[in-house]
């Protein structure tokens, strides 16, 4: 139980959703991720949603420049970053104006009242101060002069006015730590490391953080604090990881399991660049990181490295995937293993570069020239980016094929606790058999997987030529033979079809048959399971499954769907998976489609479930 110096009511909650919002230069993402770490260390399950503008520094105080960080934390029921925040923390009027429409009446709004100046109010479109008029009468507003309090805390610090101004986000963070009984130490330690070269700034920020906590404890403006239920987690070592970090660590893990170097060729693109950044820190661990001159060079270098025997990967987002597609066709015909992590964002073109979507599914599955099948997998949560990417790498080398992993901005920036696996819990990596040089032919095949052997430069006796031209079956010599081309096309197709053997039986949430089946894929996992779980509690006849393998599709998928009268496919596009299901199984699923750059939330899915089942 939280101990308080005053007699303040402490309520226990299953989970809560809070949202930090402010100017894109206010350090909102930093405060949000620190808060997330503190909750994780306290044993909560959590899910985060960073939501920031495409401009690094949009005009200060403008509506377009508002940056947000939403986190939901609590017991094991936390699967999404929450629908609507219960608590909204706003650092300026623009942040209030942008976020007020997304919170329910009665919610708590905590503001830095010092930021509500006439000029800032005007930029946010307010004609009078909402903290003083009736605008917020239906909310519990806690207005704190954070700027002034920070200044008075640091008045003897010797720091400049602008340096002091930059510390105010930590004051607010200190207040929030008090409110949820969270420890200050992890953030204080982080500050010490971050400002190692500038101990004065480190001291100032820690002082402000502590002052914020003490202020909340000493004043009477807070009538409540909360204890959030902890998640009964599996014992082990944990770490808070974003989806991009998880994908990066999966690639390193894959290379270690394969006992080869990792080669990661990449070109900077939002929201995939953090994979590049994370891997660049691990160059000493047999990780070769290559920042190429463009997307095409990035994938081509990775294909070259794959030819040379590395565990190879590249990462990108939608527009970059389009640029890489021709080269991916080369990897298909050359039959070289390659992992392509595609972190989807709002498109087409530059679209909504910092926002999330699931709209590259058809590009990933079908978007190539010629008959060029490959494996496509989709990650379901930030931590699942680890297992999905690792599995993608395992399949890539086992079947000698490119594998596309679909993540998106929501998974890549969002974070959740990740249990660090023990070596013996990780999958085994198997390579196609490599015969003695005298029996080697570059396009001979393993009878089981149809994979060709992987031999490359440096290996004596296996010298051979490969490339983009059609190959004669077995020998790999150039072949323009008509029947050979058709045969090779079918072999490549069959090889990918056989990956279906790698897919475990589909787990059903709920009963095995009934009125409605919700089919989720990729990042909608949290929203779908939460909605179906709530719907079932109210007695609705609904079940859910989640699809990870987008190509090939799970063998049992059609059978399961046919056991339900109706199928609902929620997705963040206009119905791409629904189209695939229609063509594969001749079914007519119902769609729930959201294309707003924001993830589908549980409430929206639940709403659709009710609508369908009440219409029965």
């Amino acid at each position, binding site marked *: 139980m939280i101990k308080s110096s005053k007699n303040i009511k402490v309520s226990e909650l299953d989970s809560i959703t809070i949202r930090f919002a402010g100017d894109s230069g206010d350090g909102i993402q930093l405060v949000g991720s620190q808060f997330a770490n503190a909750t994780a260390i306290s044993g909560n399950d959590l899910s985060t949603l960073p939501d920031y503008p495409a401009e690094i520094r949009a005009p200060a105080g403008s509506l377009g420049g508002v940056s947000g960080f939403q986190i939901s934390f609590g017991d094991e029921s936390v699967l999404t970053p929450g629908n609507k925040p219960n608590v909204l923390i706003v650092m300026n009027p623009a942040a209030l104006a942008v976020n007020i429409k997304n919170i329910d009446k009665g919610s708590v709004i905590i503001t830095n009242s010092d930021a509500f100046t006439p000029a800032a109010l005007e930029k946010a479109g307010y004609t009078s101060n909402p903290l003083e008029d009736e605008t917020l009468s239906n909310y519990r507003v806690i207005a704190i002069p954070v700027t002034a309090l920070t200044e008075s805390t640091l008045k003897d610090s010797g720091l400049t006015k602008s340096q002091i101004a930059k510390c105010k986000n930590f004051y607010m963070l200190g207040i929030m730590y008090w409110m949820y009984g969270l420890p200050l130490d992890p953030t204080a330690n982080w500050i010490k490391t971050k400002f190692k070269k500038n101990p004065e700034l480190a001291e100032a920020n820690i002082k402000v953080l502590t002052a914020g906590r003490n202020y909340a404890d000493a004043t009477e403006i807070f009538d409540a604090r909360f204890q959030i239920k902890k998640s009964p987690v*599996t014992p082990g070592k944990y770490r808070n990881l974003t989806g991009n970090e998880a994908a990066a*660590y999966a690639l390193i893990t894959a290379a270690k399991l394969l006992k080869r170097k990792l080669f990661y060729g990449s070109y900077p693109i939002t929201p995939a660049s953090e994979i590049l950044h994370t891997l660049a820190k691990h160059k000493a661990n047999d990780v070769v990181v290559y920042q190429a001159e463009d997307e095409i060079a990035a994938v081509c*270098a990775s294909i070259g490295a794959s030819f040379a025997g590395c565990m190879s990967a590249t990462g990108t987002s939608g527009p970059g995937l389009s640029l890489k597609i021709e080269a991916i066709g080369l990897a298909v015909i050359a039959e070289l293993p390659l992992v392509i992590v595609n972190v989807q964002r709002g498109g087409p073109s530059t679209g909504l570069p910092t926002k999330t979507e699931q709209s590259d599914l058809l590009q990933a599955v079908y978007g190539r020239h010629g008959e060029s099948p490959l494996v496509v997998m989709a990650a379901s949560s930030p931590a699942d980016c680890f297992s999905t990417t690792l599995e993608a790498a395992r399949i890539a080398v086992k079947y000698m094929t490119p594998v596309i992993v679909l993540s998106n901005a929501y998974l890549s920036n969002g974070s959740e606790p990740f249990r*660090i696996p023990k070596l013996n819990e990780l999958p085994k990596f198997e390579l196609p058999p490599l015969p003695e040089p005298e029996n080697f032919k570059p396009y001979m095949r393993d009878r089981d997987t149809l994979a060709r052997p992987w031999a490359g430069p*440096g290996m004596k006796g296996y010298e051979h030529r490969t*490339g983009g031209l059609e190959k004669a079956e077995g020998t790999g010599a150039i072949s323009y033979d008509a029947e050979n081309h058709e045969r090779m096309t079918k072999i490549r197709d069959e090889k990918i079809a056989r990956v279906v053997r790698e897919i475990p039986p589909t787990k059903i949430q709920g009963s095995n048959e009934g009125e409605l089946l919700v089919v989720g894929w990729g990042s909608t996992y949290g929203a779908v399971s939460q909605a179906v779980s709530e719907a079932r509690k109210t007695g609705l006849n609904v079940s859910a499954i989640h699809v990870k393998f987008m190509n090939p599709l799970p063998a049992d998928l059609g059978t399961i769907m046919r056991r339900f009268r109706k199928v609902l496919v929620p997705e963040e596009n206009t119905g791409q998976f629904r189209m695939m299901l229609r063509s594969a199984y001749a079914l007519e699923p119902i769609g729930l489609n959201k294309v707003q750059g924001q993830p589908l939330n549980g409430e929206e899915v639940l709403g659709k479930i009710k609508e369908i089942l009440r219409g029965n």
Partner: protein
Amino acid sequence: MENTKLTAKDFASTLPVKWCPGCGDFAILNQLQKVMAGMGLPHEKYVVVSGIGCSSRFPYYVNTYGFHSIHGRACAIASGVKLSNPDLAVWVITGDGDGLSIGGNHTMHSIRRNIGLKIVLFNNRIYALTKGQASPTTQFGVKTKSSPMGTIDFPFNPARFAIGLDCTFVARGIDTDMAGTTAILERAAKHKGTTFVEILQKCVPFTDKEFDALKDPVNKEDSILRVAHGKPLVFGKNKDKGIVFKNFKPEILEFRPGDVPDEVAVYDETNAEMAYLISGFLAPEFPIPLGVFRATEKPSYEQLYYDQVAAIGDTKDNELETLLSGPDAWEVK
């Protein structure tokens, strides 16, 4: 380096070579097979990477590892091969369209990094495999299938392009000059960092007359300036003409054979400015320079990369679990 005695024949593949009769590619193939055999490296250490075009069929005809990739991307693919295994000798075979048009960006950035690729660009001034469209080196005004009224594109000068990018080894040869081109390829093979060798070569069906002046058995030396480090810039079948620089402007000075005046410039391949001036020589005002234009030392990309890795220290023994835990993991009991 292993000491293996190999001959050019060891580097010939069993596939029938399918270039047009009379194509200069045959000569270049023979020269390169010879150079490879002389380097003392075993077959498996060689990788020949190409893009698309007539020249790009090259890997099929060399008995080493080979990758005939996609149009323009040879340098990009080769960079991945070289960086992942710097012990390999990685040759890129490309053409004027493949290497300077669709793949220009990769050529340019490979040179910028000074990554250890041996780029050999066959310049026949035409898209030949697609049957005769203007390429980035097709001379101004030339009529081709895609420019029936004559090109209005100003052509690239490949060697000068590479010198402008500060490439650490730049040379130009011609397919018919066996000895000269072999000598260039031998030096390229030993160079550390990016080498860029332009080989002038006619295309029998489309640009058959392109370099006739440089091949004329009687008068060719009047049209060729043979550039050699430390030697005066003298040319002409009677060795009676030389290059002088006046106010950074090159001029031709005529003199009595054997009596080379002091003003005639002595070539310095380490001098980037001189290389730039020389590489700009165009007919008919000037003779066409052949030879090694630039050779200088700069650390290669792969060298710098693995130096950085070595500087971090050897952490390879780290248990995977330690690596995954990072600095901020916590234990749940």
